[in-house]
């Protein structure tokens, strides 16, 4: 008889084994307060060392928007044809940043918390969840700045703004999913964290943040598949839907170009469900191995 047989015969179970999926989900749900408190504590500690403190939460997105406006709006003149380029650009940058930062912090969520993982028992998926919630809290700050900019530029406050809620929720699900995927990748291959910034920058330029896909599609008239492909890109989908919710002038402009956007809602739903479910299962399947590296 081997020791393993002896142990299982006497009803013992492996201490580093991963719990069944249902139990894991229940444990994770039970840790929801941990996820939320972890996120808010981290966001407070991020800024307590800086002199201006919490003000940076608002200043950082503002400065980012200003830099992008200077480079792409003033220097490169990307704005041609797009009405109200500033709100267009700022919306794009802020919304895409939510995904970008979720991926970046998600990739480090296991590696940066090894001491916590090695000290206490909890479902490890709490960590990527917490980091995305942290980014969601940052996005809320950015949105306040964004609303101020958009209103200051003379955009009307309409019922369309309410569409922002479902878009952000779908994007949140997508971000959690993709963050779970990179969290597992980053936990076992740290090199990922060095490659991610380059991939994310490429993604940024492919996502129609600084230009309007509806506007440039005329240039690709003989390659309709390319436009279809660019439209399917989740980075583009969530940004574009947010713009349609917030910016009335842009909405009219795209309508005039005869460029329907109804199908983008299906893409948004598709990506959210696919990434959330797929990412969760992918992360879960390595649960017992986090903490070794």
């Amino acid at each position, binding site marked *: 008889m081997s*020791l393993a047989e002896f142990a299982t015969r006497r009803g013992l179970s492996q201490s580093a084994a991963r719990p069944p999926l249902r139990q894991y989900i229940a444990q994770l749900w039970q840790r929801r307060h941990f996820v939320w408190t972890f996120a808010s504590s981290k966001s407070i500690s991020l800024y307590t060392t800086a002199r201006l403190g919490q003000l940076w939460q608002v200043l950082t997105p503002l400065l980012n928007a200003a830099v992008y406006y200077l480079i792409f709006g003033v220097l490169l003149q990307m704005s041609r044809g797009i009405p109200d380029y500033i709100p267009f650009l700022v919306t794009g940058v802020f919304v895409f940043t939510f995904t970008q930062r979720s991926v970046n912090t998600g990739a480090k969520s296991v590696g940066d918390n090894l001491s916590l993982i090695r000290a206490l028992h909890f479902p490890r998926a709490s960590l990527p969840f917490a980091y995305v919630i942290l980014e969601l809290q940052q996005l809320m700050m950015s949105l306040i700045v964004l609303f101020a900019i958009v209103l200051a530029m003379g955009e009307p406050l309409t019922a369309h703004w309410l569409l922002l809620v479902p878009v952000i929720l779908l994007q949140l699900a997508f971000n959690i999913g993709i963050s779970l995927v990179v969290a597992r990748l980053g936990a076992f291959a740290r090199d990922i964290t060095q490659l991610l910034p380059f991939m994310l920058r490429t993604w940024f330029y492919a996502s129609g943040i600084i230009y309007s896909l509806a506007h440039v599609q005329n240039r690709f008239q003989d390659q309709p598949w390319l436009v279809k492909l660019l439209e399917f890109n989740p980075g583009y989908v969530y940004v574009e839907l947010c713009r349609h919710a917030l910016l009335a002038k842009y909405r009219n402009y795209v309508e005039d170009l005869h460029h329907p956007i109804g199908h983008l809602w299906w893409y948004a739903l598709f990506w959210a469900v696919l990434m959330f479910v797929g990412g969760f299962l992918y992360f879960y399947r390595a649960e017992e191995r986090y903490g070794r590296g």
Partner: protein
Amino acid sequence: MVDVKEKTESVPAEASPQIVIDPTREPIVVVDGLHVVYRIYGAGGDKGTAATALLRMVRRRNRPQMKTVHAIKGVSFVVYRGDAVGIIGSNGSGKSTLLRAIAGLLPPERGAVYTDGQPSLLGVNAALMRDLTGERNIVLGCLAQGLSLEETKAKYQEIVDFSGLKPEFIQLPMRTYSSGMGARLRFAIAAAKTHDVLLVDEALATGDARFKRKSKAKIEELRKDAGAVFLVAHNLEVIEETCNRVIWVEEGVMRMDGDPKTVIAAYTEATDK
């Protein structure tokens, strides 16, 4: 995998490499041919560039800076309900690593650890979140261990009192704490929960005399509820007082497993040389 044999009068424990089990007692922890390996990244210091990272990934080669430490090399034993096991060995011999692996916090490279119930580790090296205040560490530590918001609120003051931290320190980040203060707080957080298998790693060593007395009482209290207690301590007297069995580890290998007097005598003789 390690073979076992039931205890009979004719087979002395030391005579065979097999583990001898006692069929009359109820096992609570079974360690079966356990190996634990640490992987350390960035040991070379240089961070590398994206291009070299890509090349390495394409070639499926590990980072040149990655080093491995084989901390536990094939340890096997069985612990029964009611046992208090002392673990001794020189610094870096793998005592803390062994406890973390039993707790299921460090995944085994090979072999396995089987337990009845969820083991909990009360350790001094179990640093939590350095950048957050003591208060946040208490709340997050409780929530992470699965306590509800209400339970956390109810336990909060008890943890603060037990840790003996002055009120002004509770609002400071944990990185500003002395190692004794940090250890006390971490011990208090982990002790807020009830445990099946209790693993105590040098928690008695840090802190002043008053905290030592308090934590020893806490361990006794926890031991009454627990099925088994593991104790790592540099103070051999404490081990001899509290344990009914001692395991001696050296360089990740088990040197001896037996009653406290014999093992401690052999250990003292070996280290005094």
